[in-house]
């Protein structure tokens, strides 16, 4: 029997680091969120879940949560559909595939802060006579105020995010498509299946794990979205999301308890679907 403790010893610095910096600090954050430490000097006393319930009375919190939901839905669905579609167009092999892939994927290599500079410009809210940027390219009835639209501005904010991430989803789906054994498709065709039936019953089930992975990745990016919003619109309330609200609470209102409460909500919203996914993944790993 091989001795196992040298292995543990080698990994132990990382275990300690993760234990302290991930789990320890998460716990610490929850602790701060449960105090009344609303300035940077006072010690803060335990107040239970008061901050967690109290925040719902603030109008801004409601707005930022609604914004996060709109953004998440538009972004996740948009990136998933566009990424799938691009992969679908390429899956049977097409001349210049490498080039196409490289172009769709390259936004991933660039930061939201950099691309936000130009997106802010393109999504100019002027319409009609004063239309510039993207509105200039659109017919009058399609022009809108983009992220300055009071109702659905967050849907516009999802556009740069979809642009940035759909290439990634494409790569995932392409790998999924290529994982379908060609013999399987062929034998279904021989059995008289139409191309659509082949797709529906053979290919689609193969894409399920990839779709799930893409959902998880897009979802967790979406719920903590920060850079993009900072770059495109800064701290304006019209595009407020929890991460911006938290930044504000820490740096402008100097209210650690409030910032920690918002942060805790962001963590909880991500955990709700990431934790089951990780457990499922771990089980699958064991199964093999």
């Amino acid at each position: 029997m091989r001795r196992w403790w040298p292995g543990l010893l080698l990994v132990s610095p990382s275990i300690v680091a993760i234990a302290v910096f991930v789990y320890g600090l998460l716990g610490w954050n929850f602790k701060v969120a449960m105090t009344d430490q609303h300035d940077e000097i006072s010690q803060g006393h335990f107040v239970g879940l008061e901050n967690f319930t109290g925040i719902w009375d603030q109008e801004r919190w409601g707005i930022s949560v609604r914004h996060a939901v709109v953004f998440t839905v538009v972004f996740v669905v948009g990136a998933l559909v566009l990424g799938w579609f691009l992969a679908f167009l390429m899956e049977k092999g097409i001349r210049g595939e490498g080039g196409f892939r490289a172009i769709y994927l390259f936004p991933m290599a660039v930061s939201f802060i950099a691309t936000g500079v130009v997106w802010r410009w393109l999504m100019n809210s002027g319409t009609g006579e004063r239309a510039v940027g993207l509105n200039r390219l659109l017919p009058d009835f399609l022009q809108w105020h983009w992220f300055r639209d009071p109702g659905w501005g967050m849907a516009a904010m999802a556009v740069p995010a979809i642009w940035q991430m759909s290439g990634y989803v494409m790569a995932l789906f392409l790998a999924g498509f290529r994982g379908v054994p060609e013999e399987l498709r062929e034998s279904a065709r021989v059995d008289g299946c139409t191309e659509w039936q082949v797709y529906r019953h053979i290919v689609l089930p193969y894409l399920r794990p990839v779709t799930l992975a893409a959902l998880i990745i897009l979802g967790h990016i979406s719920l903590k979205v920060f850079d993009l919003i900072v770059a495109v619109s800064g701290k304006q309330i019209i595009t407020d999301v929890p991460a911006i609200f938290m930044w504000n609470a820490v740096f402008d209102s100097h209210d650690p308890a409030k910032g920690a409460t918002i942060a805790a909500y962001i963590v909880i919203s991500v955990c709700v679907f990431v934790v089951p996914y990780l457990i499922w993944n771990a089980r699958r790993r064991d199964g093999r």
Partner: protein
Amino acid sequence: MAADVILKARHAAPVTSERRRALVGRGVRLTLLLLFVVLFLIPIYVLLVTSFKPLSEADPGQAWNLPQQWTTEAWRVAWEKLEPGLVNSVLLAVPGSLISAVLGALNGYVLAKWRFPGADLVFTLFLFGMFVPYQGVMIPLVQLMVNLGVYGGIPGLVLAHVVYGIPICTLIFRNYYVTIPDELLEASRVDGAGMLRTLWSIVLPVSGPAFAVVIIWQFTSLWNDFLFAVFLTAPTSWPTTVMLNNIAGAQTVPYSQQMAAAILASLPTMLIYILLGRFFMRGLMAGALKG
């Protein structure tokens, strides 16, 4: 002879119609793909042409026009403004990605080939660290950095990135090392080599690709990071992203300079992507927990 022709015709008809349909299908797909290429390149086009415009032409109303007068003036000014940030980013991203790679290799090796009781649990707990929204640790992290005396500077920022990069780096190396045949390691063990000896002489020599993937991945995330930088650094240590955001947020900075600065800030990672895209891709796929 006549029968031959008829036979050929009968045979040829369905083939050509099928082939035509395949050709049309391919044409449609190619057209759509090209259309998306144009859509994807719109922001890049605007960034590029605006960065070469003189002040008088750099306004949103002329976003789509090519510069009437090409000038690199905006680039010169943007470089001057951004240079300290670029230096800070290099000081951040180079050591950060190298340290991350070393830690990732050690962890990945143990978790794939030198497992201890509870290794799977440790791995899963690590993976959660990949998904944790960093906002959730930021407020106490700032406090901890202050207590450790590394708040505000680049070493503190490197520390944060290295620690929160452990999960993804471990994952990439582990998935890579799983593919090394156990027999190879067994053989080395029979020869009397211990854990570190095996790592050094058997595993590391074949680890090149994994190192490339991890270093590129970490370099890109460190270079592009904004959240940690904005919470953890003081003005003298601001990396490129924070400086760029300040340049872009200032009403007084002309658009041509903002755009030139945005391109400058993205050049290193874009070059890496163009030259080493293959490895970049693998890092991306690893993020999806494949393998």
